[in-house]
């Protein structure tokens, strides 16, 4: 990933824009009724695997758990070479060394959350130090959280500076800024926060930590995709989108893909620009692929639980 310069915060005002809640929710609902069948479904399921950030973010995470998940990330369906590896394995900073070791040479990226995940309520120096630790340990990607407290208090400049500092601290690593849409309260604020994060240099904006309810929602993803589209038009940079939290079924994943497809276009249908953060989703994707190919569902125990 190339280093990205922050744009001045003023671009957020220049892009501006309001969101109508009823209209945004209707549009998302209408896109979720797209009927994706046969070849186009198989294609989408394969893409969803390639865009997957296989995630474990629990207090109980251990090196053993991470090594098992890494194996799943590399070969989601052992014995079926047609199934691609996922995009990344997402873990806490402490477990980055284990993940790096387990994924070496596989093409699967190591992503680490940082900056006092999930609340971000930690002094900035410590948050930046956490990013540096994760980078030093070999993380390719850093999922940071924005300070929702500062943002809701109206201090967009501080949020902007923090994200920009985080981006600098991450160096060459790909930075995904988590907006935590469940704490922002309105689509207008989601749009605004998305623009601030992008202006500050985030490579990807991400819906949620998965630790707050509601986590990712289709309308929020739509509003963020629209903000990405406007930002590219004004700032000339293509920013990625990551949806995370509560996405458990292939059907859900395809709904997000449709939103991305019809809002941002085919260029975003790639792990470079779209990610789905999930854990249990992967097995449903595999199961649905088999169903498309064979015409029947296989025993759930044919899919490994890691």
């Amino acid at each position: 990933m190339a280093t990205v310069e922050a744009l001045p915060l003023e671009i957020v005002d220049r892009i501006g824009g309001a969101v109508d809640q009823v209209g945004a929710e209707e549009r998302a609902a209408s896109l979720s009724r797209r009927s994706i069948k046969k070849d186009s479904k198989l294609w989408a399921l394969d893409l969803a695997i390639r865009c997957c950030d296989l995630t474990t973010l629990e207090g109980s995470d251990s090196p053993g758990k991470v090594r098992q998940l890494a194996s799943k990330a590399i070969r989601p369906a052992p014995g079926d070479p047609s199934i691609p590896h996922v995009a990344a394995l997402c873990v806490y900073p402490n477990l980055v060394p284990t993940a790096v070791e387990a994924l070496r040479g596989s093409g699967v990226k190591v992503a680490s959350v940082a900056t006092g995940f999930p609340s971000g309520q930690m002094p900035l120096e410590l948050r930046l130090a956490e990013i540096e630790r994760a980078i030093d340990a070999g993380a390719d990607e850093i999922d940071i959280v924005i300070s929702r407290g500062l943002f809701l208090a109206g201090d967009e400049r501080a949020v902007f500076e923090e994200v920009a500092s985080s981006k600098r601290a991450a160096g060459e690593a790909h930075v995904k800024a988590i907006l935590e849409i469940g704490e922002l309260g309105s689509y207008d604020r989601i749009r605004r926060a998305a623009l601030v994060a992008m202006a500050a240099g985030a490579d990807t904006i991400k819906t949620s930590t998965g630790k707050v309810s509601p986590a990712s929602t289709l309308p929020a993803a739509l509003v963020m995709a629209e903000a990405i589209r406007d930002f590219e038009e004004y700032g000339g940079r293509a920013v990625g989108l990551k949806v995370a939290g509560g996405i458990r079924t292939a059907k859900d994943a395809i709904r997000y893909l449709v939103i991305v497809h019809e809002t941002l276009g085919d260029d975003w249908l790639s792990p470079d620009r779209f990610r789905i953060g999930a854990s249990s989703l992967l097995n449903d994707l595999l199961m649905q692929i088999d169903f498309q190919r064979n015409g029947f569902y296989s025993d759930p125990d044919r899919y490994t639980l890691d």
Partner: protein
Amino acid sequence: MAGRWGYSPAPESTEIASVRDTYGLFIGGEFVEPLSGDYLKTINPATEEVLSAIPIAGDQDIDRAVEAARKAFAKWSKLHPSQRAKYMFRIARVIQERSRELAVLESMNGGKPIKESRDVDVPLVAAHFFYHAGWADKLQYAFPGHEAKPLGVAGQVIPWNFPLLMLAWKIAPALATGNTVVLKPAETTPLTALTFAEICLQVGLPPGVVNIVTGAGPTGAALVRHPGIDKVAFTGSTEVGKEIQKTIAGTSKKLTLELGGKAANVIFDDAPLDQAVEGIVNGIFFNQGHVCCAGSRLLVQESVAARLVDKLKRRLSTLRLGDPLDKNTDIGAINSRDQLEKIRRLVGIGVEEGAELYQAECDIPDRGFWFPPTVFTGVSQSHRIAQEEIFGPVLSVMTFRTPDEAVEKANNTPYGLSAGVWTEKGSRILWMADRLRAGVVWANTFNRFDPGSPFGGYKESGFGREGGRHGLESYVSLEPSR
């Protein structure tokens, strides 16, 4: 590396909808052969395949139908209102039960996308019958201090753009208030009306309460001028509406007309632009623009015009035109060859007048009637495409500078059926709604319908209201309560 994602075909199965080779007229509770002996072929506008042969009702057939309705009126109007409600609730429930079949038929015969007939038309049809069934035994509350008496036999002529929904708008209030009806569906889209006739039989509706006579313009004209009709309700073109007014002038027939439109969709600079784009798309491309209240004139505040038009053009490229029965189709077939030619002619005029044409690139099927989503920019009030109803997927974009100018331009039309206002400012919505001369003003949305909300026009868009308490008024004579 990104790939290209094309959605595989996802056609709704047509097996559920059985179309007969030939139909009869529905008169006095049975399907009868037309005395005229004439039939017309009804087709699928997406494929030009013939679906069925439909009788053309002649003068004698109209006589029979009106007579059957008159005979039924004697009992139906005296039936206890809760009994009328019972039949109407049954109709509403059967429509829900047979909703998939009705949606498929509507899309096959009319060309509209299945997602619209399935998610909009048919659910609204059922809602209309439920709503009016509820009124049947509560009319004294609709008109306090008055006794609402039915008028008698209603002659109803409906258009081809929302065949079953317009039937519901006509039949439900008429039946709830104790009238009986003779309804003529449009020449090109009779199939759901004839299926509705089957539903009347299925629910045991007394014979003659609903009669359905098919045919073309002359059949409608014969129905309207028939001396046995007490009330005429028409939805269609302003031209025909004027003819009807001439025909029934000097008679005691009551009349409601719901005619054409050239609605302004007004976008202020503070509007939520992405949602406004959806509203614009829904306003003009919903049902291929075959909507009398379509938002066919886009008035954009000049300061955001360029940005909004860019967004709109981009959105156009994602619209999926094609097989109406495909669940992912956004734009279906144009209803008829005649209508397609009319759209082409007016679009040609727009180009000659110097407006700038933009059409989304899309593959047009080899057979059937199709027209790509079209946007004209640089349109002036004086252009014919800004004045005349095109009734197709064609949008004329104009700009304004101040709210006063927006109101002036929006109202500067012979029509007045609907309007849209897009702004984040609540007070401006109310200010605009006060000044727009249109029967319906939508705020930050477009093309929303509800049986409880009266719909109808100003000026050449017609008179009378359909839906809500106001809609009942067109089917009753009010006398002070004793």
